[in-house]
Structures are given as structure tokens and as C-alpha cells.
């Protein structure tokens, strides 16, 4: 081996060892600094200042902030977190940097509005985000729909929802559903039929598989709530007639109160309890249900959203 080759080999080995050692040391430093997660830091919190500092490359910076918001929400949601402190500022920065980034309004509101652990539980910030979007994209009917949706689902403000749907319905190329929702709101505000109509609209109008899966999960939950309410009413009627609760659905069938064994939206039969209650066999598969859960049921920290059809 020549002298030059020897130097090459020795320094290559040193280079590789230093690289490995630096990685190992950095991992060790990370373990020591457990509380110092970079994720929870916004170095520049003013969207306007960031826009100026971007030197005209605000589009790329907005994409970076949007990706950061998605990652932040995804990680928190996965961990079943109850606080999403940075979510609203990240979304506000994103949309000030690029006010035409419709995806940030549409998904951002879905991240912000629902109660934890499904979202940040900030419906007011979600509406403010959407209204900023409407200001900059007045013809994007989806934004009006989102405002109405949050008013309806999270704030139970049916007048606000009707007003948002009506505003959206006036835009050119608005989805026909908006006018229908605005009209039906006065008549059916607060009932299950209205909620089903809203989630069906979300399901049919979105192109995203995650939003569709979420809408499908809500539609299944509404179906379960309705099934359980109806079945428990039948059990009560059976008890009035016979003085006891039925021990199986076939007894309800025999009494002429039911046709066939009722199945949940995923095709499993419901469980009939001795006290007349009706329960799901796999409640974990039905996040967002209000009925059909066992007494001691604790939902998983992160809701299990099954893929839509």
C-alpha cells in the first residue's frame, strides 16, 4: 500500500467513525433535552413579519408552514393530546403567507373545530380562519359550507349555519346542496336528519379519502344512534305488553315488533341486554356514537376511523 493510499484509508475510517459518533452523541443530547422539543416553538409568530421576510417566496414558505401544521396536528392527534396550542397560529401564518391556499382553510377548520381529541376544540378560531379565506377567495363555496358546518355541529348555532349556507348559495358555481341546506335549516335544525344531510354533503363533495372516512364514520354513528333509539323503544313496548324485556331479537320478531335480526352499519348484530338496553359488539369501530356503548366503556384516546367504501 502506497503512502497516499494509507492516508486515504486512515482518513476515510476517521471520517466514517466521526460521522457515526456525531449521530450517536446527538441522540444522547436529545435524551438529555427531553423537554426541549422544537415542535412547540414558533420562532416568528407574526404572519405579516414572516411574509415580509420571505422576500417574495411566500408561496414556498406557506407550503412549509402547511406541512408543519399537518404534522403537528397528526402527531398530537395520534398521541390523543388534549391541547393543540400551536395549531391555530400555524394555520394563520400559512394562510397569511398564501391567502389562496384553499386546502389550509378546508382541512385547517376540520383540525381546529372538533373537541379534543378529534381536534383542537377551537370552533371560533376555525370560523375566523374560514372567514379570512372567504375574504380572499369569495367564490370558494366550500368555505361557506365549512363555516355553516362548524356553526351547526360545534356551536349549535343554527341561525349562523343557515346564514353561512345562504351566503354560500349565492356564489357562482355553488354546490346545489348549499341552498337546500339553508332552506332545511329552519325546519330541521338540531335533528338527526339534518346532521345526516350535512355529513352526506361532506362525504359526497370531498375528494380527500381522510375527510370521506371521517364523514362515513359520523354517518355510521348517526345510524347506530338511530338504530339503538328505535330498538330500545321496541324493547320498552315489549315490556309494556309482556311485563319483561325480550331475551333475544327473535322474541321481538315473534311479537310482530321487528322484522329480521337488526345489524349495525358494519354488518354485526346488536347485543340485547337484560335491562332492555341495546349495545354494539365492537364500539371501538364506531367513534362519535352517543348510544349503544357498554356502561363501563372507555373510548380509545385516538378515534379509530375506518376507511370509507
Amino acid at each position, binding site marked *: 500500500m502506497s503512502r497516499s493510499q494509507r492516508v486515504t484509508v486512515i482518513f476515510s475510517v476517521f471520517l466514517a467513525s466521526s460521522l457515526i459518533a456525531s449521530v450517536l452523541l446527538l441522540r444522547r443530547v436529545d435524551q438529555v433535552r427531553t423537554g426541549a422539543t422544537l415542535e412547540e416553538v414558533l420562532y416568528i409568530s407574526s404572519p405579516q413579519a414572516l411574509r415580509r421576510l420571505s422576500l417574495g417566496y411566500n*408561496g414556498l414558505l406557506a407550503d412549509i408552514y402547511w406541512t408543519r401544521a399537518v404534522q403537528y396536528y397528526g402527531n398530537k392527534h395520534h398521541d390523543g393530546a388534549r391541547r393543540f396550542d400551536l395549531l391555530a397560529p400555524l394555520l394563520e401564518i400559512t394562510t397569511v403567507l398564501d391567502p389562496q391556499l384553499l386546502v389550509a382553510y378546508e382541512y385547517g377548520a376540520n383540525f381546529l373545530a372538533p373537541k379534543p381529541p378529534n381536534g383542537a376544540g377551537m370552533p371560533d378560531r376555525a370560523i375566523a380562519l374560514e372567514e379570512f379565506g372567504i375574504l380572499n377567495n369569495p367564490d370558494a363555496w366550500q368555505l361557506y359550507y365549512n363555516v355553516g358546518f362548524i356553526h351547526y355541529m360545534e356551536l349549535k348555532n343554527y341561525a349562523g349555519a343557515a346564514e353561512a349556507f345562504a351566503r354560500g348559495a349565492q356564489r357562482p358555481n355553488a354546490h346545489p346542496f348549499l341552498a337546500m341546506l339553508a332552506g332545511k335549516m329552519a325546519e330541521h335544525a338540531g335533528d338527526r336528519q339534518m346532521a345526516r344531510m350535512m355529513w352526506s354533503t361532506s362525504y359526497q363533495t370531498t375528494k380527500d379519502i381522510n375527510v370521506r372516512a371521517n364523514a362515513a364514520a359520523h354517518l355510521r354513528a348517526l345510524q347506530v344512534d338511530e338504530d339503538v333509539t328505535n330498538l330500545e323503544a321496541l324493547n320498552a313496548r315489549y315490556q309494556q305488553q309482556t311485563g319483561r324485556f325480550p331475551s333475544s331479537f327473535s322474541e321481538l320478531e315473534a311479537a310482530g315488533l321487528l322484522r329480521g335480526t337488526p345489524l349495525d352499519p358494519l354488518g354485526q348484530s346488536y347485543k340485547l341486554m337484560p335491562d332492555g338496553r341495546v349495545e354494539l359488539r365492537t364500539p371501538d369501530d364506531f367513534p362519535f356514537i352517543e348510544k349503544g356503548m357498554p356502561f363501563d366503556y372507555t373510548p380509545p384516546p385516538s378515534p379509530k376511523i375506518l376507511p370509507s367504501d
Partner: protein
Amino acid sequence: MTSRIAHIASNTFREAVRDRVLYNLIVFALLMSAAAVVVGQISIDIERLVVINLGLTAVSLFGMVIAIFIGIGLVSKEIERRTLYTVLSRPVRRWEFIVGKFFGLAGTLAVNTFFMAIGVFVALLYVSHHFQQQDRWVLVALYFIILQFLILTALTLFFSSFSSPLLSAVFAFSLFVIGSFAEDLRGFAGMTHGATRWLATGAAYLVPNFSALNVITSVAHSQPVSGQLVLDNSAYALVYTAMAICGAVLVFEHRNLK
């Protein structure tokens, strides 16, 4: 005259290629490939936006760096190596030297941009699977970026005609930053009164308006660029470039090279 300018320009281009300036294309290709593949997995619904925003921003920034760091050496390097005296001892006028240098660097940047544009469109095809009609606006944004390069190259040449390479780089980069705030500057000028207003307005119009030449974000959203803006920006960039080259020629003509 034209052949002398062309000769200096082609030598400048060859020298830039010899300096491995076009190696930046490899970094650019890696950046675009990574963006096209990774973004879909870590974000939602912005693959096309990222390819356009990242691609055009990288074209712009890489080109700016090349324009500044090659531009600052165009005159000083020739003086340092004493090759300038050989050139000027031939029947070459000083202004021809400056204009030739400008076209050489502008050509290098145009070739660099051409290859990067191919990279942007290949990445776009990868994420969208087909080209859309509105993708033609990306070409307009690329054209505007080349106009920015022309202005910056001329300005760097102007600074390098009388200043050291380090100071030329600082001046050129500062003007790029100030030029990106040109519209804000005009807004500030509008808020002042009297002589300050005249001075601020003068300064706002004197610095190059790079923000008017930046349509990256709007083309990423498929928003059209008006033909009038294309015409006006082209005329503005050519006039401003001519102004900076004239300044460089005037300074260089009277510079004592002994």
C-alpha cells in the same frame, strides 16, 4: 464589434462552465426529486403546489447566487490575473468588454434556467401524471425569473466595475433584498410629506422592483398572468438592465487600470 462582444460572451460562458457552475443542477435535480416523492407523504393536497413553488424558488435563488458570485468576479478576476490588459491591448473597447461579460453571464444563467425548467416540468408530470393547460403560466414565471437575472447580473457588473468583489456582493445582495420590498417602499413614501416624500419616492423608483417580477405564488395557483404585465415587465427589465450596464460602462471607461 458584434463578433468581439460575442467572443467575450462565449469565453465568459465557457469559463463559468469550467468553474463547474452547472454542478448546481445536480443539487436542483435531487431537490426536485425529493420534493416530488416526499411531500405527498408528509402533507395534504399540495404536491403540485410544492413542485411549482419549490421548483421556481430554487431556480430563482440558485440563479441569484450564481449571478452575484460569478458577476462580482467578472471584472476583478480579469484585473487580478492581468488577462484584462491582454484583452484591452487588442482592438477591444472597454464597453465591448463589459457588454460581452454581461451577455456571457446572462447566457450561462439562461442555460442553467433551461435545464432547471426541464426538471420542474418533469417533477410536475410525475405528481400530476399529465400536463394541464394552466401549466403554461409556469413558463411565464420562469421568463420573469430570467428577467430578474438580467437586472441582477447588470447590477453586479456595475458594482464590480468599481468595487471589490466582497463589497460588490454585499451591494448586489442588498439591492436584491431592497428590490423585493420595492412596493412596500413606495407605500412608506406615500405616508411621508415634503422633501422626505420626494426622497423616499425617488429611492423607491430607483431600486429594481423585483416583487413585480415575482409571480411564483400566483402561477402555483394556476392564476393567469396578463399579457400587459408580460410586456410591461419585459420593457422594465430591459430598460433597467440597460441603465445598469450603461452605468458599468461609464465607470469602467474612466477607471484607472494602471
